């Protein structure tokens, strides 16, 4: 029999407000095995932990039950406390009487009653606990960064800086991501290319960093410290190591009418292309859907003009297999489709554009060489209407918009409006906004400058309808402050489209077994305390894949993710989770059922010699679990027909005891 100590936490009034903590500790005093029961304001505090340690010594406790907040919150804390008191840390059980009791029940009587039952269940379980010792596994000292935008670039640079090799996998032919498409950046208005491209060059020149551009992760296996990853390097039909990026092939390519995705289809590129001048790697790529040579074997001009002989029409997709200790997800975002918002006539007029298209229109490397001209007729627009929150904060219809605030639109729209007024003072600029959300260093000052110094007309209200007629866009909108409906004849309408996670994120999350929220943003291990870690050990989050973010936030999160990766890779060995499966070989009948259900291949079969009661020996086939590979899901324990397989920490007998305690 264990000697169990029960510690009931008040959590200030968080628990004590709806649970009579005194009554709980009194009621649990008489449970089997309990030799000590107490309550205290904050069990997790220094004083609370000291109290536990003292009780362990004084009452020679062998098991501890803490009735407190969720084990997801403080289980680790109390395990450390137990270890410090000389107990095995796995002799601690938590009864969750805060998140799952005091916070969800209103009245003291029901709260107290339930807390007592949860406490009894934990006591029943701890009575059957056994000391556990975690196994160890080695760490592969190499990191994988998925996504080569500013988030991935910064993470990779920081990890490489600490001396660990890093691979970046980017699905586009170049790294750089969305930031490479931007013109200026708020609130300082430095040019995006000027601050990004040096970092891209750093990445290219860093000998610790390898770039797999035009590549995708296709398979991930393993666990923290030991991931096995397959990367598909898509055929670009150009030998990357030979191509010098001179661009002769691009110049001569006869297929000139391919919509240029880098400029969001506002101009054309060739079938063989380098996305932009500062691309990294600066290597040409052939678009197989546009190239005549690849489609029907007629052409071959690029191969003829390539002095280096880098063109290879026979190139095939290549699969690279590599081991990694840590994986950073930096898959970023995209603006949502405007298909469902045709009240703004996006599909009907070329002069209704998204903000990202506006970035390209004002970018010196963009389709109009930096001159702000209407896409339809190339004329200078004199009246521009910016519409905020298109698809953001939209709870009406899930197929249409996003319920969340996209966070970056208020600031980039202020930037667009300000820059337009600065460069073209004869232009009238209206911004329709619901709320101007500008929390951030120097952000509100920036937005106010757009209004006060640059004369941008901010109107609280929304645009309801845009009607293209003649060469004007008739904008019908509300001005809530003046209580008027406005009719503006605009030349250009710019929609601040909501942003959403990249479509590649969902299948990637499945591969990584990393969880996502309902919007397909990756979930962090804890929203406040572990913001750059995924709940899946060894997987880290960087940038907008976790939620909408601007550049400064992305860069700081990228650095934080890198430091977590460095902390992991700096270890030689990882202590594993001791809550793994184990087979009772006396009961095992060697049927292989467990082997088939194990998703990790952690179970193997060996032939083992047994001494029989009649003193003969017999060789039997029995299951053996590799504790370093087992992740402790328990699928095998249920599949096992003879009941030989059990899960440490969640034994059949323990869960059964909990059921009994609850159903008493």
């Amino acid at each position, binding site marked *: 029999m264990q000697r169990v100590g029960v510690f009931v936490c008040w959590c200030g009034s968080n628990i004590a407000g709806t649970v009579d903590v005194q009554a709980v500790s009194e009621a649990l005093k008489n449970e089997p095995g309990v030799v000590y029961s107490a309550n205290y304001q904050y069990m997790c505090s220094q004083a609370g932990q000291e109290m536990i340690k003292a009780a362990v010594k004084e009452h020679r406790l062998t098991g501890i039950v803490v009735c407190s907040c969720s084990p997801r919150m403080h289980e680790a804390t109390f395990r450390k406390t137990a270890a410090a008191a000389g107990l095995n840390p796995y002799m601690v059980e938590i009864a969750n009487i805060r998140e799952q009791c005091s916070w*969800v029940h209103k009245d003291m009587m029901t709260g107290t009653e339930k807390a007592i039952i949860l406490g009894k269940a934990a006591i029943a379980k701890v009575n059957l606990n056994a000391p556990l010792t975690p196994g160890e596994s080695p760490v592969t000292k190499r990191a994988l960064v998925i996504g080569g935008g500013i988030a991935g670039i910064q993470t990779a640079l920081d990890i490489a800086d600490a001396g660990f090799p890093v691979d970046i996998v980017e699905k586009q032919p170049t790294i750089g991501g969305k930031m490479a498409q931007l013109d200026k950046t708020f609130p300082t208005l430095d040019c995006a290319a000027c601050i990004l491209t040096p970092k891209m060059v750093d990445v290219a020149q860093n000998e610790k960093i390898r770039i797999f551009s035009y590549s995708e992760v296709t398979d991930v296996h393993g666990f923290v410290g030991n991931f096995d990853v397959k990367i598909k390097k898509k055929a670009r039909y150009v030998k990357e190591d030979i191509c010098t990026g001179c661009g002769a092939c691009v110049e001569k390519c006869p297929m000139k009418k391919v919509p240029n995705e880098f400029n969001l289809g506002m101009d054309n590129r060739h079938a063989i292309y380098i996305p932009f001048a500062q691309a990294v790697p600066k290597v040409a790529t052939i678009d197989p859907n546009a190239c005549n040579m690849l489609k029907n074997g007629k052409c071959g001009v690029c191969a003829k003009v390539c002095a280096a002989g880098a063109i290879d029409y026979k190139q095939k997709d290549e699969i690279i297999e590599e081991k990694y200790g840590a994986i950073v997800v930096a898959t970023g975002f995209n603006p949502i489709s405007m298909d469902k918002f045709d009240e703004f006539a996006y599909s009907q007029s070329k002069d209704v554009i998204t903000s990202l298209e506006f970035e390209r229109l004002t970018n010196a490397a963009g389709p109009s060489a930096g001159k702000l001209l209407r896409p339809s007729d190339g004329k200078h627009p004199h009246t521009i209407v910016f519409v905020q929150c298109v698809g953001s904060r939209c709870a009406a219809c899930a197929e249409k918009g996003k319920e969340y605030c996209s966070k970056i639109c208020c600031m980039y729209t202020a930037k667009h409006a300000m820059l337009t007024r600065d460069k073209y003072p004869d232009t009238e600029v209206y911004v329709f906004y619901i709320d101007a959300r500008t929390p951030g260093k120097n952000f509100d000052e920036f937005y106010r400058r757009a209004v006060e110094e640059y004369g941008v007309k901010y109107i609280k209200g929304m645009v309801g309808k845009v009607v293209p007629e003649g060469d004007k866009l008739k904008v019908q909108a509300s001005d809530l402050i003046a209580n008027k409906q406005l009719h503006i004849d605009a030349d250009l309408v710019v929609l601040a489209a909501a942003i959403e996670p990249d479509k590649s994120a969902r299948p990637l999350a499945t591969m990584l077994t990393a969880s996502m929220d309902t919007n397909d943003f990756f979930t962090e291990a804890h929203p406040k305390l572990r913001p750059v870690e995924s709940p899946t050990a060894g997987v880290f989050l960087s940038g907008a894949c976790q939620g909408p973010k601007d550049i400064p936030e992305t860069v700081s999160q990228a650095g934080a993710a890198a430091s977590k990766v460095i902390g992991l890779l700096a270890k030689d060995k990882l202590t594993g989770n001791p809550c793994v499966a184990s087979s009772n070989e006396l009961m095992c009948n060697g049927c292989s059922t467990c082997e088939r259900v194990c998703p990790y291949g952690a179970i193997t079969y060996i032939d083992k010699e047994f001494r029989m009661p009649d003193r003969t020996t017999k060789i039997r086939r029995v299951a053996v679990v590799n504790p370093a590979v087992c992740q402790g899901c328990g699928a095998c324990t249920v599949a096992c027909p003879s009941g030989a397989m059990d899960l440490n920490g969640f034994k059949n007998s323990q869960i059964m005891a909990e059921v009994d305690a609850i159903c008493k």
Partner: protein
Amino acid sequence: MQVNEYKPLIVAFCCNWCSYAGADLAGNNRLAYPADVKIIRVPCSCRVNPMFILRAFQRGADGVIICGCHPGDCHYTSGNYYTRRRMAALFSMLDFLGIERARTRVEWVSAAEGAKFAATMNDFAEKVAALGENKRLEDLRCKK
């Protein structure tokens, strides 16, 4: 303590990664559900042995609900698929034994779905309460 109003006894098995976290989130957001629901934490929904459920009914539980990650999102890749198949078989057997379908349920609740967790528990508790006490499998020897 004898209360006049009938209170069902509901056991909820929640996987550690999604549903238990979802239940915590319901708590963080103070989304109420009946205190009749008692949660047992398991690493994965596939850890739930049909024996546990039978035991719960034997000991007088009125309803048992198993919550796991959404299909495709299992922390252990495929555990919830096992759960889905195992429970389909078990529930049809329980149905045969006279334990109504509404007393057993499998739900997918992610770590981000606190509201769904509370709504699911409210709904389940209501349906179970409507069925009244479950005596079919109760083992009277277990009663004090």
